[in-house]
């Protein structure tokens, strides 16, 4: 078929400025990844912890109000310490902190898996198909390119870490029927969002750097798995053999976890809950259990049936430095983890600057 039959029309539309060019790259990349059904499955899977978090916050809000709606669920509250049942609002921040901390802990797994699915092709494919001249010959700077690619990872991680946090916070706020809940818990929200940003920035730049190392996205995926799983295994093995404080620093996810603990100050909440439950257990042992809940109009008496003393979480005082359970924050300073993550960020930036070169060079 001869060409030129269709003619050619001039176009007189308006071109936008350069500031949001990265968003075009992000949109295109995010759209392309949606074709991957594994990405969809991962996102759907990541919604379950968010639903559980939201459910918990709903329950907590109703618990604070001693709502009748909870009557069928009274058995859940029977073993709680009296102090908690008497004044749940006093523990609002603590339990919200622990709930968000636990949620983010689970989401970190989904985040790493999602980065594994979304990230490897971002730059490696562009290198394989030599797409850089197409980008940089247009009004796209390297920083726009990197920001656009990072935006793809940010979009997906945001969907499973940031959006659920915001929604759950809103739901918790709505079900608390107490405007003071914002005063008590805004730090939890800010810390959770900040942690999400840390994960996005750290994992995003790291994945982009790895993606720029190879034109084969499978190799990139393998490197990511190695960094994620192998570093964790190495950290665990070293921790159990040489018992040094710095051992967890070898694990990428342990560093992110340490940052989360520091941001949410979750250790304080853990200690508070531990002390609460230990006090409750002691009271039960002494056979003195006051009944703070009196039946009132519209309220539920939670003191139904014989209470069972809950087992307190692993006490920090009883754990040794190197036989630390998940309930306790590692003893090394969070700044060490921050330094490791910052170092990885600098390394990633250097790799990106080296591997994704501008066109200002000899061919």
């Amino acid at each position, binding site marked *: *078929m*001869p*060409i*030129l*039959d*269709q*003619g*050619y*029309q*001039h*176009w*007189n*539309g*308006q*071109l*936008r*400025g*350069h500031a949001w*060019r990265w968003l*075009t*790259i992000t949109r*295109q990349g995010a759209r*392309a990844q949606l074709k991957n059904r594994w990405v969809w499955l991962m996102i759907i899977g990541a919604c379950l912890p968010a639903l559980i978090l939201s459910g918990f916050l709903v329950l907590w809000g109703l618990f604070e109000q001693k709502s009748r709606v909870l009557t069928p669920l009274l058995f859940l509250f029977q073993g709680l310490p009296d102090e908690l049942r008497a004044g749940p609002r006093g523990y609002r921040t603590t339990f919200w902190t622990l709930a968000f901390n636990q949620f983010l802990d689970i989401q970190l797994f989904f985040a790493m898996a999602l980065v594994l699915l979304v990230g490897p*092709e971002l730059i490696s*494919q*562009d290198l*394989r*198909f*030599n*797409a*850089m*001249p*197409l*980008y*940089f*010959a*247009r*009004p*796209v*700077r390297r920083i726009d390119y990197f920001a656009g690619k990072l935006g793809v990872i940010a979009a997906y991680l945001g969907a499973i870490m940031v959006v659920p946090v915001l929604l759950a916070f809103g739901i918790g706020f709505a079900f608390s029927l107490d405007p003071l809940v914002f005063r008590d818990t805004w730090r939890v929200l800010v810390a959770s969002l900040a942690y999400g940003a840390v994960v996005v920035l750290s994992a995003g730049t790291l994945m982009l750097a790895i993606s720029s190392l190879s034109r084969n996205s499978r190799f990139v995926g393998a490197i990511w798995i190695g960094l994620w799983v192998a570093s964790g295994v190495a950290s665990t093995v070293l921790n159990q053999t040489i018992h040094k404080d710095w051992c967890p620093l070898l694990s990428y996810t342990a560093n992110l976890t340490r940052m989360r603990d520091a941001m949410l100050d979750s250790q304080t909440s853990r200690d508070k809950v531990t002390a609460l439950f230990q006090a409750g257990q002691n009271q039960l042992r002494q056979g003195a259990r006051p009944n703070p809940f009196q039946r009132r109009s519209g309220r539920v008496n939670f003191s139904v049936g014989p209470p069972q003393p809950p087992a307190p979480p692993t006490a920090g005082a009883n754990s040794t430095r190197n036989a630390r359970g998940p309930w306790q924050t590692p003893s090394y300073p969070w700044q060490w983890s921050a330094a490791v993550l910052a170092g990885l960020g600098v390394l990633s930036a250097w790799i990106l600057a080296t591997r994704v070169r*501008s*066109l*200002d*060079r*000899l*061919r």
Partner: protein
Amino acid sequence: MATPGTFRGRICYFIADEARAEISGPTIRAGSDWDDGATEFAMLIELNGVTKTYGKVTALSGLSVTLPEGSIGLLGPNGAGKTTMIRSLLGLIALDAGSGRVLGMDIRTSRMDIRQSVGFVPEDECLFPAVMGVQFVAYAGELVGMQSRDALQRAHEVLDYVGLGEARYRRVESYSTGMKQRIKIASAIVHDPRLLILDEPTNGMDPAGREEILALARDLSRAKGMSLVFSSHLLPDVEAVCEDVVVLGRGRLLAQGRIDTLKQPHDRQFEVRVKGDQFAFAGRLAARGIDAAPTDDHLLVQLPEGTGTAVLWETADQTGEQLRALRPRRSTLEEIFLSALAEQD
């Protein structure tokens, strides 16, 4: 030393040494779609003393060139600085020295604006991966700042124009070499640039595909009013598409001007085609002291000083031969190119 000539309002130069052609005065562009009747005084491209080195390699050495609108062929051997010149035009490189303007925009300070206004077809095989043809072109449009809807609509139009309408929903990785070249052109013209830069657009293409690309480039330039910078090693390609030519060598300007002008007719050399035995006719001319070398289907005749073409008619009359063609010989683009390179050495 420069020999100027003026054709249709354009000023053309043949430059025999590194001296820069000082072109002054306006160029009036007429007949293009942007021509609103007003006189436009800006040149398409102006480079002044542009120097670019990469370590010990000097890619551009004080290059100064002023180009009018139209289709411009960029010629030069490997390492002549063609690609570096193109990159400097697009503001992709930091210049060591010199200045320049493209479409009136400074190549140092308005890089992004230049790239937004110019379409560029890179030499290498390069693709946005994992997209269909129409997405490819629309994405390219969005990257220069088009709205998504405009870009998609325009992508369909230009894909029809370049002859990829039926392949628009195929993944670009499955395209043939020619199709990839055409989709690169489509993505470069999606925002209807005033200037389109094609870097070796016919590389690696079969003759039919090459002819299609040349026809496309010609149409864009001559019928659609788009200015072209057409870089190629293939002189016939440049000749088929371009009106002007720039010859580079070792980062310097060797020659520049309209191809018609550069292919100047020779006063004493003629191409002669006879009906009968051209060898016998050449022998007769030789007997008269005239050099006549058989070339393809004609004779290349060098007349001595003081001799006119009448001697050819006389010889034909004497030998009973018929002259079927008699015309002054013109330099070929290849000769111009080689001559420019030789003068450089």
